């Protein structure tokens, strides 16, 4: 299976268990680790002389894991899934965090330049400006001022200002 964490993607396969070890293949490299379950539902995972205390659960389609006190949120990337956030010019402006839409600074049909602020989001009393990555035209505004939005919510859809390239761009192939 392919797992995405942050901007990185990894291919992970559980090869099997035997009495001593769990065998996995990660990005082509095979690895044997010991796994000792704990009463709290977690386990001790050990390999290469290091020992990690792990916990984990599924959450709304994502997989959330703690290694020691560090958190990881993975998304399982299925083959054939579109990945709209990594194109040459992002066709959508999404909320990088949950928060409140403070200001919407564009309307449908507006031409915008690279770096121009489109939406100002407030989260935990800090303001974050969301800007266009490149010149574009505003296709659709999906939120209004005062609205609460979740992480990842699409706020504004854009059309590239330059002659439209193929929708299955190089960026998207990379993302798989």
């Amino acid at each position, binding site marked *: 299976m392919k797992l995405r*964490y942050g901007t990185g993607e990894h291919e992970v396969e559980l090869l099997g268990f035997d009495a001593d070890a769990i065998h996995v293949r990660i990005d082509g490299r095979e690895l044997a680790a010991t796994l000792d379950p704990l009463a709290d539902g977690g386990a001790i995972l050990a*390999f290469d002389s290091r020992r990690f205390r792990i916990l984990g659960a599924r959450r709304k389609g994502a997989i*959330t894991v*703690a290694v020691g*006190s560090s958190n990881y949120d993975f998304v*399982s990337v299925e083959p054939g899934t579109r990945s709209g956030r990594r194109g040459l010019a992002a066709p959508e402006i999404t909320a*990088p965090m*949950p928060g409140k839409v403070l200001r919407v600074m564009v309307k449908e049909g507006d031409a915008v330049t690279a770096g121009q602020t489109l939406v100002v989001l407030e989260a*935990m009393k800090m303001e974050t400006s969301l800007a266009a990555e490149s010149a574009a035209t505003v296709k659709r505004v999906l939120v209004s001022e005062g609205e609460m939005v979740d992480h990842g919510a699409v706020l504004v859809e854009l059309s590239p200002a330059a002659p439209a390239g193929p929708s299955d761009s190089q960026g998207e192939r990379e993302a798989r």
Partner: protein
Amino acid sequence: MRARKFKKLLIANRGEIALRIIRTARMTGLKTVAIYSEADARSTHVAAADDARLVGPAEASKSYLNIAAIIAAAKDSGADAIHPGYGFLSERAEFVRAVDAAGLIFVGPRAEVMAQLGDKISARKIATQASVPVVPGIETADLRAAREFGASAGYPILVKAAAGGGGRGMRVVESAANLGDALETAAHEAESAFGDGRLFIEKYLARPRHVEIQVLGDEHGTVAALGERDCSIQRRHQKLVEESPAPNFTQTTRDAMIDAATRMAQAAGYTNAGTVEFLLDGSAFYFLEVNARLQVEHPITEIRFGCDLVAEQLKIAMGERLGAISDPRGCALECRINAEDPGRGFSPATGAVIQLRTPGGPGVRFDTHLAQGVEVGAYYDGLLGKLICSGATREEVRRRMISALDELAIVGVTNTAGFLREVIASDAFARAELSTRFLEEHFPTGPHHDSERDTAALIAAALVAKDRLGSRDPQESDGARDSIEHSPWTEMPKFELWRTR
């Protein structure tokens, strides 16, 4: 003398600080009333109090900042005193006036003192009159005046809200070219955060330390200073790590700072618990502001001085005289565990606590309102808990903190614990090379990369996924596990679960 005995305390706050205040109020024999927004109906502070009142919908402006609703909740529940905690209404003089007008006791300074100290301009005046050194600066939102100040004092300069504190609305301006934008944005943030768009501009110190003095003032004119806290490790002017005593801090400078803080509190007629903040630059220090309330990092002072600062606040509010305070002992260190993703520029995180593993043992205190099932939303600030370690020496405490952070896990809410472990374990922190630039200098890109830990995470994720693929072994399903997966109250009709009271 406005003070008198009171019997029932309303806590005008939420989260870990509401719980912490309720704990002490119960210990002193007071009845407690929690307030909550619709988003917090199931929260831990609601469960811990003797009574609880809904004050409005999730948005803070309609609930935890809703003065009328909070006063009404106090009246309705028979509370005769209000503790504001920190944040929210804790430094709003108009809230204190409303509490006074309702005939209730406010656990904090008088309204006029709060108003004076809450305004950076008048606070500076008091400091100057009390011979407390201040950083060069002026109050203005005017671009021309700001440019003149910048030209004479030299860049970088700091633009901040004249009202309020906590780093909100603060901007560092590196050159005159950025000044216009900065003034506009800061004024907007100041207006929206504090309802007061006035700005203050001052000389920005390049690598200062943030050191502050805890003070207690009773209503009989006595002011006590309970040592210092070094809070230099900050991100965007928000403290992340605090310690006491401040390392590499001479007794001469400490004495001078304590004297200055005491003069400041006395000059302001300060009562109850407050903090006088300074920027320390070498052995020179400058008055920054007074936080006219309990501070987030107050526990490290409590542990060193063997006192309960909330209990002291309650005694002062009852008109009692300050008692003897023990000499400080040992060291204490606090890490703020925030719901933020250090791997994604510390963007706020939300979620429900799926699993919680808390640290413990000698010299470990973890103040939190978290429990399995508690939801962390985007409505309020993301402080999940404060991990406080104490011991005989700084190095002992530092190692204890590393060990305690290793024990802590909050599955379901991405948080700063793993990153703070790196900070505390870093050589720079071990050597106490503290400045407010610490994180930019030593962790410019956030957490360091640990490829083995990432591999462990990938394996863990694959195991979680495997469960979904249907490898359940019925033999493994014993009675105890089955029970754990049952929680009867989750099965109640929805209206029951979210009903207000």
